[in-house]
């Protein structure tokens, strides 16, 4: 009632105070709430003055008694704020705290004995005492949102979510923190004296200012330069994998995830639990420096992140009484199962759904080399559908050539164009099939740079755009533009030599020139007509539903 309103109001005002001191602007909501609370408090003041002359006290007493425990429970450990209800001088808290629970029980019985004013004064004194004692106890902690407090206040508390470190490269403190973290992540090998740290890969070349918060590495300076040669700190399979990532030998999000899990299988096979340690905890700690190493070689993809989460969960769920050999076999089987379910069988299911969407006489446009889209087209061709494919390609990766090779090898008739010709060729196209690197929680599709352009032009021509993506690539991140989180590839890839001349050879010496080699971009869901996943064909906006269902399953 009024009391609870007061306590609620107190809590909210404290939050607002805190956010004010943190220098954040109050949102509209918060301002409205402030206004409400001020009104309430004014009302409370008036009511309190009227209480003494009001009738129907018993009801109020009862209600107040009920609300008191709730009210006292929901009192935040706040500093005595100047907006608090003016109260009489609080009696010593110790004396007041003890009689509170005791007095609750006999109070209703004693009510008719005492006068109304006395009772009210007692109650107020008790409340103040409790508030003061709680204030002394919990000055530092944040208010725990209780059942009474609704959702809106909790929004205010963690006001800013910390940005991940890989998108804060231009902040020198964050870079220092990362270096320290890598130092701490030393793997104590067999010689404890030799704690070699995971090296920090340094950025290369001038970074375009819009993307200066991202890392930009050179392929000619591999991370293995700073590691010893028979790598004992990092498992050789992981070193090999890191090299393959940074040189682009394993590229494409499915291939990267499979290779990662394969490397983890080798790590698990070669793992022995040190004495006095538990496999479930130690193995996860062992994997952390490997993951940082791989991250330095090439930033992890969303699918790899999900695979790592799954593995870590499986490892931590191993019961402690399980023997090492059994545990290892179990983990290896888990990995095999994960790959089988999420990649191989998912590809089959997606192919099955997509073939329904491919009709005879179709002209299908694909972009770059997506392993899933290639798989779908090959399956459709085997099921004797008649269609032809237009492969769109773009520099500097020119992955479309590989897609072209695979399709033509099967016997599909293909056309090959560069992305600059997309608007010329789209009138011929009946469908566009795109692959995805990740699907974000707000329905945006993160894929190879250029995909959003293709989707845009296709929308302009009213050509349906179908995105094929397995569910394990669904990511809980939210992004609305391609700047916040992206990957910068080696800028030297953009340099091309024609007829013996390399114009951009000395691009670093020109002070006003920067080369930008982006890898990913995000496509808004308005341009995507259908997402084909292993769970079925869903619209782009249903991605958060799938994520929620997945979380519930787990």
């Amino acid at each position, binding site marked *: 009632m009024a009391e609870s309103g007061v306590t609620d109001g107190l809590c909210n005002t404290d939050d607002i105070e805190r956010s004010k001191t943190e220098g954040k602007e109050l949102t509209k909501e918060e301002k409205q709430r402030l206004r409400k609370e001020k009104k309430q408090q004014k009302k409370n003041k008036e009511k309190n003055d009227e209480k003494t002359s009001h009738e129907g006290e018993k009801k109020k007493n009862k209600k107040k008694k009920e609300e008191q425990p709730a009210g006292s429970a929901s009192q935040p450990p706040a500093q005595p704020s100047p907006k608090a209800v003016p109260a009489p001088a609080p009696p010593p808290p110790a004396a007041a705290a003890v009689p509170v629970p005791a007095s609750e029980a006999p109070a209703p019985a004693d009510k008719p004995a005492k006068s109304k004013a006395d009772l009210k004064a007692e109650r107020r004194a008790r409340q103040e005492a409790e508030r003061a004692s709680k204030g002394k106890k919990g000055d530092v902690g944040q208010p725990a949102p209780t059942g009474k407090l609704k959702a809106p206040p909790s929004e205010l508390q963690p006001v800013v979510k910390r940005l991940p470190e890989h998108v804060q490269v231009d902040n020198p403190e964050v870079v220092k923190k990362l270096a320290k973290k890598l130092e701490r992540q030393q793997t104590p090998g067999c010689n404890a004296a030799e704690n070699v740290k995971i090296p920090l890969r340094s950025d290369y070349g001038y970074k375009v200012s819009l993307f200066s918060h991202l890392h930009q590495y050179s392929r000619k300076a*591999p991370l*293995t*330069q700073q*590691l*010893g*040669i*028979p*790598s*004992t700190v990092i498992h*050789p399979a992981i*070193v*090999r994998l890191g*090299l*393959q990532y940074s*040189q*682009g*030998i*394993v*590229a*494409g999000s*499915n*291939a*990267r995830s*499979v*290779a990662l*899990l*394969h490397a983890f*299988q080798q790590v698990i096979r070669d793992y022995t639990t040190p004495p006095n340690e538990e496999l479930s905890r130690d193995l996860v700690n062992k994997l952390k420096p490997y993951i940082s190493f791989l991250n330095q070689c090439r930033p992890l993809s969303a699918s790899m992140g999900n695979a790592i989460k799954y593995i870590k969960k499986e490892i931590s769920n191993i019961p402690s009484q399980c023997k090492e050999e059994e545990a290892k076999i179990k983990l290896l089987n888990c990995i095999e199962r994960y*790959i089988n379910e999420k*990649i*191989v069988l998912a590809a089959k299911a997606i192919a099955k759904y997509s073939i329904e969407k491919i009709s005879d006489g179709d002209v299908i446009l694909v972009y*770059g*080399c997506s*392993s899933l889209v290639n798989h779908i087209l090959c399956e459709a061709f085997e099921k004797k559908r008649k269609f032809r494919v237009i492969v769109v390609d773009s520099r500097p990766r020119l*992955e479309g*050539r*590989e*897609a072209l*090779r695979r399709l*033509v*090898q099967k016997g599909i008739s293909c056309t090959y164009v560069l992305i600059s010709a997309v608007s010329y060729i789209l009138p011929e196209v009946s469908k566009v099939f795109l692959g995805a690197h990740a699907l974000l929680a707000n329905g945006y599709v993160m894929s190879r740079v250029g995909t959003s352009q293709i989707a845009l032009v296709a929308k302009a021509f009213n050509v349906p755009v179908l995105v094929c993506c397995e569910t394990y690539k669904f990511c809980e991140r939210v992004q609305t533009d391609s700047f916040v989180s992206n990957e910068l590839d080696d800028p030297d890839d953009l340099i091309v030599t024609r007829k013996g001349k390399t114009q951009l050879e000395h691009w670093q010496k020109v002070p006003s020139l920067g080369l930008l080699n982006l890898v990913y971009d995000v496509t808004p869901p308005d341009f995507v007509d259908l997402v084909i996943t292993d769970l079925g064909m869903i619209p782009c906006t249903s991605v958060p539903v799938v994520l929620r269902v997945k979380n519930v399953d787990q």
Partner: protein
Amino acid sequence: MELQAVLMAAGGGSRMPDLTYNTPKPMLPVGNKPLMWHPLNLLERVGFEEVIVITTKEVQKMMSTDPKMKDVKMKLDVVCIQEDGDMGTADALRHIQQKIKTDVLVVSCDLITDVALHEVVDLFRAHNATLAMLMSKAHDFTETVPGQKGKKKTGEQRDFVGVDQSGKRLLFMANEADLEDGLSIRKSIMRKHPRMHIKTGLVDAHLYCLKKAVVDFLADNKSISSIRGELLPYLVRKQFSKTTNCPKSKDDADDQTQKTADGSTNSTELLICSRDEPLLQLAQERSCWNDHRGDMSEAYHGGKLRCYVHIMDQGLCYRVNTLAAYIEANRLASKLLEEPAVHPSAVISERCQMGPDSIIGAQCQVADKTSIKRSTIGNSTTVKEKVKVTNSIIMHGVTIEEGCNIHGCVICSNAVIGRGADLKYCLVGNGQQIEAEAERTNEVIVGTDQLMEI
């Protein structure tokens, strides 16, 4: 463990008999350190902790007494083999097959280089190669070699090395001696790699990364005795052989009985071909990468056996197996070593002129009015007054009396050069004594006992 290092130090130094008849080649001083110290230093710098050293008993004895070898902090597992037995490098590998548990890095003891070793090993790792080796552009030796009469003969057999367009994949390797009629390249190679660069001016550094399966293959095939001469050309040829490419018959690989029943050639193919596990296969299929373009085949043309080479164009890389190379290496040794050129325990008088490129060993005594330029002086050497030493290599324990003039010479250990001798471009053998006031030019002065060895 990723790689095991093996140092081949049993070679005889057959191309420089004058130097090696008393001192075995691995212990010849280069920059006042034994020759085999240099590759060991390279391995140590890079991060190796253990090395298997294959050498002779004689060298092992000398190693244990040499103070410089004690600087090596790695654990050296010395395996002795008979010196006179005709053991080739491949035979030596077969000898230690039991010790080899993982992929192996074979280094020759006469390699002096400052290569960034990760370049070679990265090729080995990234492409899952069977062989990765190091080669360098050959530098001409400019120094005059003592005892060489006439022009430098170009009779050295050339090596023909064929690489693909990226310069990393090794397609062809043959020595001039094996090519009688001409250089013939198979059509299958040309179809897969239409652009090949064939290079002749390359020096093979004898640094190889080999897969463990190759060592097992050697154990079965006892006919191969030299790594460089026989194994390497065999592996390079086998990349394009039909049997390695077509069958993905994994059941054959697992069937042990079939291995023994078949002829040795079949089983050995299966042993070498890197058995790609199904997950790796899946990853490669899904990856949108290809090492070549223009034809219809998948990455690596589906070949499981791959050989890679890293060709250094900058930096030092010398194989000290001839006298000329030995002199050159000594000249450049001061650049490689981080230690001060003059050993702290050497006693050098103040009136001595010493050039910056000279190296003076421990416990030397250099008297007044001497001039030492561009030379290396070994340990415990005594140089008396008024001696001029230029462009020379003087090994340990040598005594040079007053007034000598030594130019462009190589003077081996424990020699004594008499007073006032004038030596130009000479090679003085071990323990020799040059009489006073001798004047020798372009001669090799060795003892009579050495003359008997041919």
